[in-house]
């Protein structure tokens, strides 16, 4: 059993489990599934700076902070007790492409050559961590949600704006991964 749990889980196990989060949160307490708003609650709690967008009772949304703290702890537990001893298996074409950028370590879930502290001082690391993170935070709030709030919760509730947002997420991702990222990774 434990050996089986340590293997990578297939999509048809993980996807439905993630989908079940939607009714679970609704039935437990009328909460709409979504994660990116936690970033807004942090802003509202720590540095509202009289900005109207951050003037609301964030304490009412504390559940969301507990939820993301749980996601963090889930990461700790999975890495500690259930970690897969083997390196990740990726598509051979991706592996060949990454080798060209000096990325050959598949022991972690993020490429250790890119996402590490010393790399922050390199142009590649700075763009990937600082600029990338900024786009995630700015873009999700501008769009009014992320993969969870729009793609999963919004589309599940048959919301056209969420379909549009999700299509734009994908378009942005395709442009970056295929046209811009190769340049950034070779810096």
């Amino acid at each position, binding site marked *: 059993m434990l050996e089986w749990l340590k293997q990578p889980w297939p999509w048809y196990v993980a996807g439905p489990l993630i989908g079940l*989060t939607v009714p679970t949160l609704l039935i437990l307490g009328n909460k709409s599934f979504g994660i990116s708003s936690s970033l807004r609650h942090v802003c509202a709690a720590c540095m509202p700076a009289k900005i109207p967008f951050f003037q609301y009772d964030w304490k009412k949304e504390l559940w969301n902070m507990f*939820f993301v703290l749980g996601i963090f702890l889930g990461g700790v537990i999975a890495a500690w007790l259930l970690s897969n001893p083997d390196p990740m298996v990726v598509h051979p074409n991706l592996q060949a492409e990454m080798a060209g950028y000096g990325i050959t370590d598949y022991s972690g879930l993020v490429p250790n050559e890119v996402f590490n502290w010393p790399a922050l001082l390199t142009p590649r690391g700075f763009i990937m961590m600082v600029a990338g993170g900024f786009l995630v935070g700015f873009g999700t709030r501008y769009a009014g949600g*992320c993969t969870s709030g729009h793609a999963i919760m919004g589309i599940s509730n048959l919301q056209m704006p969420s379909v549009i947002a999700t299509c734009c997420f994908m378009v942005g991702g395709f442009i970056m991964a295929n046209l811009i990222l190769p340049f950034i990774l070779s810096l």
Partner: protein
Amino acid sequence: MSTTNTFVQNQEPKVHDTDFEVRSLDTMCVSDTEIKEPWYGNLKYLLIGVLFGIVFVKAEIISWFRIQEMFRLQSFHMYGVIGSAIAVGMLSIFLIKKFNIKTIHGEKIEFHDKKFNKGQIYGGLLFGLGWAITGACPGPLFAQIGTGATAVVVTLLSAIAGTWVYGKFREKLPH
């Protein structure tokens, strides 16, 4: 005069209809319950978060490499995950509405319609660019840090900064 957290609930925003004033556009993470629970009631959301985080890691959804495969059409994995999550979510919401299922506290479950605004396009594209760079949407950032990729803390702080800058300049941005 007071500089502490005074919540100006009824401050009139210049940009209407994009956020919680019309809650439908930003309902994610907004709690609809009127019931005031003690703080430890939140522990159940912590537990769900833990399970959710474990799934994130074990299905390699938080893997930068899986995201790269998705955007290069090299793997079905992420499409399968997101697609089946939507299918289960859709069926659940359909059943909740059809049978008028209540919360465990007996409250009616609320849904909100989202309104279209151009932010979903501009913001969506910007988030898509960031998603392919970092290999993570906001949820996976927390899980990546949990698995020991501590430098991702910088990505998370930068994402919080991005959210703050959006809030600051929101009224000047096209919506």
